[in-house]
């Protein structure tokens, strides 16, 4: 017993102060890709190498619409390897309240050889990431962190209960979600607890492309969760179906099966991205949720 105590005391505090301080990530981390839309010469090489279809385009009558969908992106960086107009940022906190906010699309007039002559319509909805200009900039993470105590306190009696549901994931997301309960990310410092039953939960954290075999279980879990409830789709697969997409065995994105309040991109999203998504979700609670 003394040994256990001694070990804890000698270890000291290891918990991150995020969101008060920015994520402590490596200089080598691959966050979301960023496209220099104005100077993008050709969408085709990046689209060809992108394993998930996150970068895709459609050509018609000498015009091209090219898009980047962060919900599908696995942050592999292959596009940046082949295209000088794309770079991988360090930004992993990409959670968005609307699926459409994760998509950016631009129009180009094409040269005869299929390369871009010029940008005709710049991306309207830029991905709702931190530091990105967007129609309604999301509140900063710091502000969200301050909000959480206030809102969660008002609505959930100072505690938010999360039920994690793996609806088909590869277990990569689960590895990072488990980390939230560890001493470094320590989600309990926000009054957030992971619970064993959906009946005790305010929020469902759902991973995976929803498999045909988990579809019913996910619906039942959702129905068993008392309102007001929130649903977070986690990871590229949860947000869009990811590399698996839709096939005979999967339904793809979580929102094809139950309504989703917040999307957390990444493959898997790291614990900062997960925290950011959860905080975003709580900031979202408004009267339309019955509270």
């Amino acid at each position, binding site marked *: 017993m003394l*040994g*256990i105590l001694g*070990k*804890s005391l000698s*270890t000291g505090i*290891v918990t991150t102060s995020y969101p008060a301080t920015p994520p402590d990530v*490596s*200089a*080598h*981390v*691959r966050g979301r890709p960023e496209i220099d839309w104005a100077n993008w010469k050709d969408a085709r090489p990046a689209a060809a190498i992108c*394993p*998930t279809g996150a970068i895709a385009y459609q050509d018609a009558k000498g015009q091209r619409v090219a898009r980047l969908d962060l919900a599908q992106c*696995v*942050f*592999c*960086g*292959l596009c940046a390897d082949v295209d000088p107009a794309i770079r*991988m940022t360090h930004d992993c906190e990409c959670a968005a309240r609307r699926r459409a906010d994760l998509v950016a699309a631009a129009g180009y007039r094409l040269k005869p050889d299929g390369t871009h002559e010029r940008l005709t319509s710049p991306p309207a909805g830029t991905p709702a990431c931190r530091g990105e200009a967007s129609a309604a900039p999301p509140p900063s993470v710091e502000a969200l962190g301050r909000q959480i105590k206030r809102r969660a306190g008002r609505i959930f009696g100072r505690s938010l209960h999360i039920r994690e*549901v*793996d*609806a*088909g*994931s*590869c*277990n*990569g*997301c*689960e*590895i*990072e*979600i*488990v*980390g939230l*309960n*560890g*001493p*470094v990310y320590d989600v309990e410092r926000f009054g957030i607890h*992971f619970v*064993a*039953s*959906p009946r005790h939960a305010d929020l469902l954290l759902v991973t995976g492309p929803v*498999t*045909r*075999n*988990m579809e*019913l*279980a996910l619906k039942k*879990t959702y129905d068993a969760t008392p309102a007001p409830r929130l649903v977070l789709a986690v990871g590229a*697969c949860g947000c869009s179906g*990811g*590399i*698996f997409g839709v*096939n*005979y*065995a*999967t339904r793809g994105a979580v929102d094809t099966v139950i309504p989703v309040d917040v999307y957390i991109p990444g*493959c*898997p999203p*790291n614990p900062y991205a997960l925290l950011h998504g959860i905080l975003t979700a709580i900031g979202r609670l408004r009267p339309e949720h019955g509270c």
Partner: protein
Amino acid sequence: MMLSHVSSELRPVVEELTRRFHGRLGTCVAPRSNEIYFHAPLDLVSGCCAHLYRNWNARLVTVFADDARAEAGVFHLYYVLALDAAHGFLILRAPVPPETPEFPSLANAFPGVNWQEREVQDLFGLKLIGHPNPRRCALHDDWPEVYPLRKDFDLKTVLPPFQGERHKFRKVEGEGVFQVPVGPVHAGIIEPGHFLFSVAGEPVLYLQLRLFYVHKGTEKLFEHLPIAHGVRLAESISGDSSFAHATAFCHAVERAAGVDAPPRGRVLRSVCLELERLHNHIADIGAICTDVAFVTANMHALRLKEKILRVNEHLTGNRLLRGQACLGGVRFDWDASQLKVLAGLVAELRPEFAALVQLVERSSSTLDRLQTTGILKPGVARDLGVVGIAGRASGFDHDLRRDFPHAAYDQVKVKVPVYQAGDVRHRLRVRVDEVRESLSLIEQFIAKLPGGPVHAAVGEVPADRAALGYVEGWRGEIFHWIRTAPDNRLARCKIKDPSLQNWPALSEAILGNIVPDFPVVNKSFNLSYSGTDR
């Protein structure tokens, strides 16, 4: 057949087998010196496997099918036998004509293939003859009659909503016998599966497993992607083994293409495999402690795991090493400062891990819960062909890193811990020993890190080549078998995760134990649902 292509260790086996079945075995091809194919008639397979098992101690590591009707007019069944002592694989390929779509079961002689044979039956519509339990396995009972891995089944088929019963469980009856259903949505942050316990009082009489809840059509999807995209898909077969699966896939493609990863690339591969082993083993040690209510130890384990994941991120840009695997080697080389960070991690983990182990070892109440809990007897483990951590804790002295050295494992001596007790305590012990060994291996690898490139170019892979890739992942042996198609695509990709082999052992290990011990027994195996279900 040119026996000169066969490794000197396998040659006696091939010669003896050819003599024994004098000419009836069909053509023998040796695309690689340790991977020999016999094109055998179907009726010879069972005798052949039994012979190799008895006389050469061969293990039947995987059974799968391939729809070759377009090319050869038949389905092919493949039986992969590992000859650990001869460091090679013998693969029997047997044709199944589409007019008589059935094949004899080997599950009575080799219980380890019970599920795999049923998977063939479910996904290819080839009927099993003489199987002890031929019910559905990979597809649930409420699925319509479809055979997804046949070529004439479209990947994107939208099946109507399922109706009816998922699975008809066997009844267990008797005075005071209760059934306890658990899942598919579990209480912890784990993957979905259904367990049905039959209990009399506290002890478990019988455990029925229902898996394949996270079946994602992965093997079929491989047939629709360019080979290069397959590497990313392989990373998502089982997240905890992202790098190991992707590397097994790359290994298979490289063998098909006849390309070797350059020396530096092979060493970095091995280091990444050890990093993956480290973070999983340490997390498991913590999780086992949590399941017997020693949460403080888990907190320390999670702290150490976080250190490893951060170094992974520093070395490869991703905490689970995603994006690092690539055809022909690894994608990112490491500069001196990154290597220093890696060396720093090893130096830091040594005392930290020793302290964690001490914490566990000195907690008599923890050890009391782990000892003699969930025993898997060596004989049972051998019959079921249990591999990896669970195999080594139950007397199976085996590790592909030592017996089939891949990546750079031929340059080091891998110490393999083996115990006979087969309880949770010893599955924990295997992990503890392996963590220490991993740390030492990483040190040895960086000490003699060769220079040069980290990946070789793998150009267009010729069509219709078959190859077996293999990697000892942290959980056990992983196999990827591929057959190539034109235009750098695959006609088939068979994935064998060690979990598929080991699940039935969990049902054996839990017998007679009390239900409250199930979580810790389950955790001590820590099998991948996604790796199993694919």
